[in-house]
């Protein structure tokens, strides 16, 4: 059989949850990510995120602002999810200068500094997915 004729089923789109309190920033990034083929769920706070997580099992990745996102900040949410939803990758965003270093000390969650280009987010998402795929490979 000719290998090139084998039909490879397309990968299902990744569902990601975007946590961003600024509605305008959120809609711009969400639109961009949808244009890249992601299914994007939008929430304004960590509280809404937890509610969304209770209602769906499809979320594979969370993109969260670190600060001012409700009763849990981005770090706290990421730590909590590591226990409750270990299959979900977390990508944090911030305008704080030292947050990236702090995050690196605390955990392995990635931080993208604001202002960022939407392409930076997609690049980081791809890196996270690649890392997860590598981990999943049987030895």
């Amino acid at each position, binding site marked *: 059989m000719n290998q090139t004729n084998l039909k490879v089923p397309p990968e299902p789109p990744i569902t990601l949850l975007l946590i961003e309190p600024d509605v305008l920033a959120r*809609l711009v990034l969400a*639109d961009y990510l949808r244009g890249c083929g992601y299914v994007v769920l*939008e*929430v304004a706070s960590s509280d*809404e995120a937890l*509610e969304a997580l209770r*209602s769906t099992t499809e979320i594979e990745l969370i993109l969260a602002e670190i600060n001012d996102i409700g009763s849990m900040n981005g770090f706290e949410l990421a730590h909590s999810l590591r226990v409750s939803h270990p299959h979900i990758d977390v990508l944090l965003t911030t305008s704080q200068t030292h947050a990236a270093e702090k995050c690196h000390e605390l955990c392995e969650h990635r931080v993208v500094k604001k202002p960022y280009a939407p392409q930076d987010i997609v690049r980081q998402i791809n890196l996270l997915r690649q890392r997860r795929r590598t981990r999943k490979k049987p030895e």
Partner: protein
Amino acid sequence: MVGEPIMEPERDIAAPIRVLIVEDSVVLRMSVAHYLRGIGYSVIESGNAQDALDVIASGIQIDLVFTDIDMPGDMDGQGLADLLAVEHPDLPVILTSGDRIVTAEPASGAVRRFLQKPYDLLVLQAHVEELTRPG
């Protein structure tokens, strides 16, 4: 330039119709937004009236607002609809609530509909299609 007519920006007919959903129940909002996106609408999600006003003030083209009435914050959905009837009378608004029924039409003649919760998404779709139909 003096004497030149002021042109209103024309709607890009190639762009999808954009619906602004204002709903504080995140699960319901996500579900309605997902449904409308699935049938071809561009959807902006807002959890309160102030965010909705920020979106409208930003100049992004909005073709219809679908808002819950009972929401936390300084302004509820009724207040939002009343404000839009004055400031954007051409912008159709669909109100929804599980508790209240709104029958009064806005004085300005702005287009307003009411959908009782729980609503059928097909009924919502029919309203959205009718209210955003060109012409």
